[in-house]
């Protein structure tokens, strides 16, 4: 019996520049484009409908957006992997790079900055300078206190990372819609989940 193996199946090598060029290529050639305004307005109508349904109980709206995002994330990751053919990341630094340069680029055509690393390198922040979800949005007074308008993004990240065996907490720290200086999403890695092995093998 003989076996053959391969290195990374994607052209994305370790260097920063090539991941960027690679994502650019995936976005240009392998992604169907839609009108961003249609997307923004669709998301707006979802949030507004949820606010009505939950009688402006914004904690519940946040939770609902998060769980909708989670359900999207667990499916979106497959789409992402099929398009990019990237292997698992060997460090959180690599993960953060793939998220900002590749995932956000491919799905939303933005490249947020990564920063604010914790000292033990288990959490980082994503700074969304442009956020296509919240274009045209101004929060009314009552919502500005509690509503995290783009909370679906946290759910998507949570779900997608979980599917590649990374158990993370993802939450909003600040949002320009609330009058903050920056829009900051925090990602904290709790643990790497173990791959399953068949029963009776351990």
């Amino acid at each position, binding site marked *: 019996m003989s076996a053959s193996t391969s290195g990374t199946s994607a052209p994305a090598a370790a260097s920063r520049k090539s991941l960027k060029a690679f994502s650019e290529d995936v976005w240009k050639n392998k992604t169907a484009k839609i009108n961003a305004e249609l997307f923004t307005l669709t998301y707006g109508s979802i949030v507004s409908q949820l606010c009505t349904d939950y009688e402006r109980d914004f904690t519940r709206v946040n939770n609902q957006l998060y769980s909708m995002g989670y359900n999207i994330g*667990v499916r979106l990751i497959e789409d992402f992997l099929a398009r990019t053919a990237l292997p698992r990341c060997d460090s959180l630094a690599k993960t953060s790079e793939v998220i900002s340069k590749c995932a956000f680029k491919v799905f939303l055509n933005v490249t947020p900055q990564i920063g604010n690393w914790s000292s033990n390198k288990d959490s980082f922040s994503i700074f969304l300078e442009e956020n296509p979800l919240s274009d045209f949005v101004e929060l009314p007074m009552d919502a500005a206190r509690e509503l995290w308008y783009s909370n679906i993004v946290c759910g998507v990240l949570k779900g997608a990372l979980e599917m590649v065996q990374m158990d993370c907490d993802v939450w909003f720290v600040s949002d320009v819609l609330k009058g903050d200086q920056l829009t900051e999403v925090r990602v904290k890695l709790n643990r790497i989940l173990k791959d399953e092995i068949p029963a009776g093998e351990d």
Partner: protein
Amino acid sequence: MAIYSFWIFDKHCNCIFDREWTLKSNHASGTINSKLNEDTAKLLYGMVFSLRSISQKLAGQGPHNEIRTIATGKYRAHVLCTASGLWFILLSDLKRENLSEVLRYLYGEIYIKTVVHNWLSPIDFAESEAEKRGRGTRKIRNRNFLQRVEEFLGPMIN
């Protein structure tokens, strides 16, 4: 040149799809999601699992080292492992050297479009703890999926 069978395993070590062709002359011959193939599926899983862990150990700290093909005296197994833990495996005769494009198409254009983008289909086929770790028996039964697999792989079986 011939393709003998096609298998999908999920991250719970379960076989979630199998298709085996028996007659070269007949695209429709053979079995789909057959109970009789359960043991074969387990053996195939074990073979890929072992060789995969060997190849990853031998790669050391370097870049990922995923198994691509395994050739025996009689057949060749082509393997695609995704970061999300899905395995796509095609068994072919020895003349087929590289089917990685075919596997990528099965994943990106067929599995994604008919299972992942289909919100009425589950993507996690284990519904409880008791169905994880290779003990589940649920299969992909989406009509569109089955049809597109037949259309795509049928012409390649002989």
